């Protein structure tokens, strides 16, 4: 690690700004100059990242100072979840990272299940994997569409959203809702996988590589794209680790780290996939990492489909009636089921006392849930580790000697979703 530890908080040998790691200060010689203009990239701006506010100091066209103001979408998720029982809580985490919503659901549900020491049936795990990988493709498509839109490649937006509509159709087929599906519950899946899903998903898996080839044909060797993204916003591997980056941002800087492979959850150790790593750490490499990840995710979805098609009739949620709602047919005949249903719906099931931190690989990086339970039916403290929050901390480091146009490219490539940042 090259960050030296002195009380004056300097980071020698790195590009991390010294006084405050997340604020790029205007250099001494320019501070008194009249040519430095402070501009507000206000919370409402056309690049569709949501409500990020950047206070930028410009010297001509060059960015000499930047500092971010966040909090315009602070929703108080953590406080709201403290007042809801665990079954009802699942609707909250999805809306945190609203583009990669399945991963937020997954991480919360995994945390509760680990505290409960509840076994989840295999079918549920494979389906969770499938939906999370579809969601990863969805998230990268939104990233690609909007980032390319901002850099001027407007047609990418329509291509990416065409594929996105197919994924949302699949999501609607399974769960009834396009986004924010509330499909993962503590113990497995809320409902069984309906008929007709597997052939539709196969069609998508066959089609997706061709769509990816289309995108690569448009952007990969496009001179303007290369000029605007290569060498821009460089984040070295050491800086990335010091700044806590994870996910595609870290992999684009040359660090080979993927939680799906290195700390496998669900059944990731049983599928084959490659982890793309690129050395340069610029905007182009982050774009390449996400493009490759889309291809790998399609591969994973195909492997999940192969397993799931053989699991017709398998249970989709755990059998523990103290935690999981009983099937509705049983409510007509069994008194115990009725009592369990009543207790779970009114009071909620109780989770043993303890604290736990669970992390998954969301499309933005390591998304984590820290859950403290006091043994009651409602969480005592829930905290979500948001990868976008951490990604935005790296803006100041990426923007040395950048122009205004590069600022847009860098902020887009860090792929920060403001719901995730502000929670």
């Amino acid at each position: 690690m090259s960050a030296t530890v002195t009380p004056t908080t300097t980071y020698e040998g790195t590009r991390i700004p010294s006084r405050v790691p997340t604020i790029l200060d205007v250099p001494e010689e320019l501070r008194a100059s009249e040519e430095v203009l402070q501009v507000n990239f206000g919370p409402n701006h056309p690049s569709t990242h949501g409500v990020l506010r950047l206070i930028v100091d410009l010297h001509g066209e060059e960015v000499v100072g930047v500092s971010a103001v966040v909090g315009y979408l602070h929703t108080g998720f953590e406080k709201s979840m403290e007042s809801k029982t665990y079954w009802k809580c699942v609707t909250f985490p999805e809306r945190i990272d609203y583009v990669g919503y399945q991963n937020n659901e997954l991480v919360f549900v995994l945390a509760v299940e680990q505290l409960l020491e509840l076994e989840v049936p295999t079918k549920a795990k494979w389906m969770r994997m499938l939906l999370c990988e579809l969601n990863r493709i969805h998230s990268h498509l939104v990233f690609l569409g909007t980032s390319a839109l901002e850099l001027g490649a407007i047609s990418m937006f329509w291509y990416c959203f065409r594929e996105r509509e197919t994924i949302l159709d699949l999501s609607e087929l399974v769960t009834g809702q396009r986004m924010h599906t509330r499909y993962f519950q503590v113990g497995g899946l809320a409902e069984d996988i309906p008929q007709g899903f597997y052939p539709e998903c196969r069609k998508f898996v066959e089609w997706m590589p061709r769509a990816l080839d289309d995108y690569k044909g448009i952007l990969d060797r496009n001179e303007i794209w290369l000029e605007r993204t290569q060498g821009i916003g460089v984040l070295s591997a050491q800086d990335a680790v010091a700044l806590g980056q994870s996910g595609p941002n870290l992999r684009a800087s040359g660090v080979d780290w993927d939680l799906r492979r290195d700390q496998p959850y669900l059944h990731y150790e049983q599928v084959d996939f490659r982890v793309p790593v690129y050395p340069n750490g610029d905007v182009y490499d982050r774009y390449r990492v996400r493009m490759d990840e889309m291809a790998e995710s399609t591969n994973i979805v195909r492997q999940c489909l192969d397993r799931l098609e053989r699991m017709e009739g398998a249970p989709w949620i755990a059998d523990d009636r103290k935690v999981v709602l009983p099937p509705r047919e049983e409510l007509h005949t069994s008194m115990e089921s009725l009592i369990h249903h009543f207790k779970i719906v009114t009071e909620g099931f109780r989770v043993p006392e303890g604290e736990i931190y669970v992390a998954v690989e969301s499309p933005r990086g390591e998304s984590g849930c820290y859950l403290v339970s006091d043994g009651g039916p409602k969480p005592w403290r829930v905290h979500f580790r948001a990868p976008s929050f951490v990604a935005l901390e790296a803006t100041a480091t990426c923007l040395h000697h950048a122009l205004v146009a590069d600022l847009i490219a860098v902020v887009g490539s860090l792929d920060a979703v403001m719901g995730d940042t502000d929670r």
Partner: protein
Amino acid sequence: MPTVTVETGRIREACEHARDELGFDVCVDVVATDYLDWGGEGVSGYIGTASGRDLMHPMTQGLQALPEVKPKRFSVSYHLLALRRGAPRARLQCWVDEGEHVPSVVPVWPTCDWHEREQFDLMGIVFDGHPNLERLLMPEDWEGHPLRKDYPIGGEPVRFSDEQ
């Protein structure tokens, strides 16, 4: 994940040790938890586990048990990760009372900048030596620290049917 409780004054040393000697390169998260009124209610009733009731755990028999007492009001947990195969993780925890300050670990991991600011904003824990300790998520002139247990959830009462 092993949890190590560290004396509050020495947390920065502990973090340096974790980073340099033990190889935890990344600080993933800094979380503060408010334990006001912890243990006020008994934790009774059946605790559902997949294996059913366990005779060795009194709580599964429906007996009243109180959760273990916490040393102070707030705990500040630092979640660490080592980028090695197997992903070893650790949690360093220190305990503070209201008004006590915690040394900042921003010199050790620059990423803790915003995490500490967020915990200051939402929980009111002051980090000494932080280069820019201001409110991050709430508006700058907000009073109070929302995630504390004595801060009300806010919002407004919802009118149902024919209530006045």
